[in-house]
C-alpha cells in the first residue's frame, strides 16, 4: 500500500466515523468550522469520564478535590504572552475582537455586513484571548506564590485553531487536568503516577492504549529545536489509541514543564528554588469518541463494567 493509499484510507475512515457520529446524534452541527455540539449520549459519556478521572484524583492525590478550581475559557491576552504561547504556538491561538466604534463606524459596519463583506475586520482587539490549555490560568492565579507539591484539579474548555475534517480534532474541547506544582521530584512523580493511572483507567474502559513520548506542535524553525529538546528530555508522553486502525491518536497526555511556568510566574518551593510543574490531561471528547468507536454509538449496549465505571444511566 502506498503512502497516498494510506492517506486516502485514513480520510475515508474519518469521514465514515463523522457520518456515524452525526447519524446517531453524537455530533450536533454548529456554524463554526470544526466546532461541534454533542448530543445527550456523548455528553453523558464526557461527564462520566470526568467523574472517573476525579475518582482517580481522589485516590492518587487525596487533597486535589479541595483544590478543584474553575477558570473560564477566556482570559487576558497577556496570558498567551506570559506562557510563551505566542512564541511557541502562534498558529493555534485565538483572540477576541469587539466593536468599540461610534455611530458612524456602526453605519460602516452595517454597510459592509449588508454587502456580505467581512465586517469582523472592523472590530478592535478586546484584550481577551481564548484559553489554549486548562492549566494556564492556574499558573497566572498562583503567580508569586510558594507551592508545596499540591495537586490542583481543573476541567475546562480549550481553544486550538486547527479546524480539520478529522472528527477527533476539535477546535474547542474540554480537558480534565491534574496539575502538580512543587519540587522537580514532586513534579516528576506526579507525571509518572498519573501516566500509569490514566493508562489503567482507559484500559479498564475497554480501550487498547499505549503511552509513548511525544512533542507539542511548536511553530516554525524555532519549533524544531523546541520539539527536539522536548522529545530528547522525554518531557511529554501521550496515551494513544487506534481509533483508526494503524493510525494512533492521542487521547491523554502527561507533561513535565520543568521550571518553565515556575520561572514565568515566579513560583517557588520552600527552599526558595524555582517551582517545577507537571500536568496530566484527558481530552474528554476524544476519550468519549474513542469509546464510541470501540463499543458503538448506543451506550445502552456498552459492557456493564464500562457503563458502571462511567456511571451511565
Amino acid at each position, binding site marked *: 500500500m502506498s503512502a497516498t493509499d494510506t492517506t486516502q484510507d485514513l480520510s475515508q475512515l474519518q469521514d465514515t466515523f463523522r457520518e456515524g457520529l452525526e447519524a446517531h446524534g453524537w455530533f450536533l452541527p454548529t456554524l463554526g468550522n470544526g466546532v461541534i455540539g454533542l448530543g445527550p449520549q456523548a455528553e453523558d459519556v464526557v461527564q462520566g469520564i470526568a467523574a472517573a478521572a476525579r475518582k482517580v484524583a481522589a485516590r492518587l492525590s487525596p487533597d486535589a478535590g479541595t483544590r478543584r478550581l474553575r477558570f473560564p475559557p477566556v482570559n487576558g491576552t497577556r496570558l498567551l504572552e506570559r506562557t*510563551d504561547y505566542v*512564541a*511557541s504556538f502562534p498558529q493555534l491561538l485565538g483572540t477576541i475582537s469587539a466593536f468599540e466604534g461610534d455611530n458612524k463606524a456602526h453605519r460602516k459596519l452595517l454597510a459592509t455586513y449588508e454587502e456580505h463583506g467581512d465586517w469582523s475586520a472592523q472590530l478592535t482587539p478586546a484584550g481577551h484571548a481564548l484559553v489554549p490549555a486548562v492549566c494556564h490560568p492556574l499558573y497566572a492565579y498562583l503567580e508569586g506564590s510558594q507551592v508545596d507539591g499540591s495537586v490542583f484539579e481543573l476541567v475546562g474548555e480549550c481553544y486550538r485553531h486547527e479546524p480539520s475534517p478529522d472528527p477527533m480534532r476539535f477546535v474547542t474541547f474540554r480537558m480534565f487536568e491534574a496539575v502538580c506544582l512543587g519540587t522537580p521530584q514532586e513534579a516528576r512523580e506526579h507525571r509518572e503516577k498519573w501516566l500509569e493511572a490514566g493508562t489503567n483507567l482507559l484500559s479498564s474502559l475497554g480501550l487498547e492504549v499505549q503511552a509513548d513520548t511525544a512533542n507539542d506542535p511548536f511553530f516554525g*524553525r*524555532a519549533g*524544531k*529545536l*523546541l520539539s*527536539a*529538546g*522536548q522529545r*530528547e*528530555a522525554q518531557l511529554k508522553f501521550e496515551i494513544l489509541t487506534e481509533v483508526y486502525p494503524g493510525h494512533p491518536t492521542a487521547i491523554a497526555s502527561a507533561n513535565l514543564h*520543568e*521550571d*518553565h511556568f515556575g*520561572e514565568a510566574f515566579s513560583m517557588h518551593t520552600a527552599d526558595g528554588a524555582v517551582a517545577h510543574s507537571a500536568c496530566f490531561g484527558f481530552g474528554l471528547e476524544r476519550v468519549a469518541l474513542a469509546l464510541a468507536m470501540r463499543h458503538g454509538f448506543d451506550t445502552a449496549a456498552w459492557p456493564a463494567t464500562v457503563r458502571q465505571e462511567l456511571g451511565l444511566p
Partner: protein
Amino acid sequence: MDSTAIETTVRSVLGQHGKLSEDAGTIAADADLYRAGMTSHASVNVMLGLEDEFDIEFPEERLTKATFTSINSITEAVEAINND
C-alpha cells in the same frame, strides 16, 4: 572568520540571550549550557541571535539540543555552516 573570533561572538550572544547563571564571557567552552541555566526557550533566542550575528541559517538537521549544548558545539556548528 577564525574560530577564536566566532567563539567571542558566540559568548556575546549567549550573554544576551542564554539566561546563564554564569558569566558567558568566562564559562568553560565545554561546559553544558543547559546545566548552566539555559532553558529551551532561551536556546531558541540564542539560535536566532546567532543567525542574525553570523548571517547564517541553521539547517534543520542541526536544530537539536546537541548543537547548542556548549560553546564548543555551537562554534563547531557555525564553522561548519560557514564552510558549506
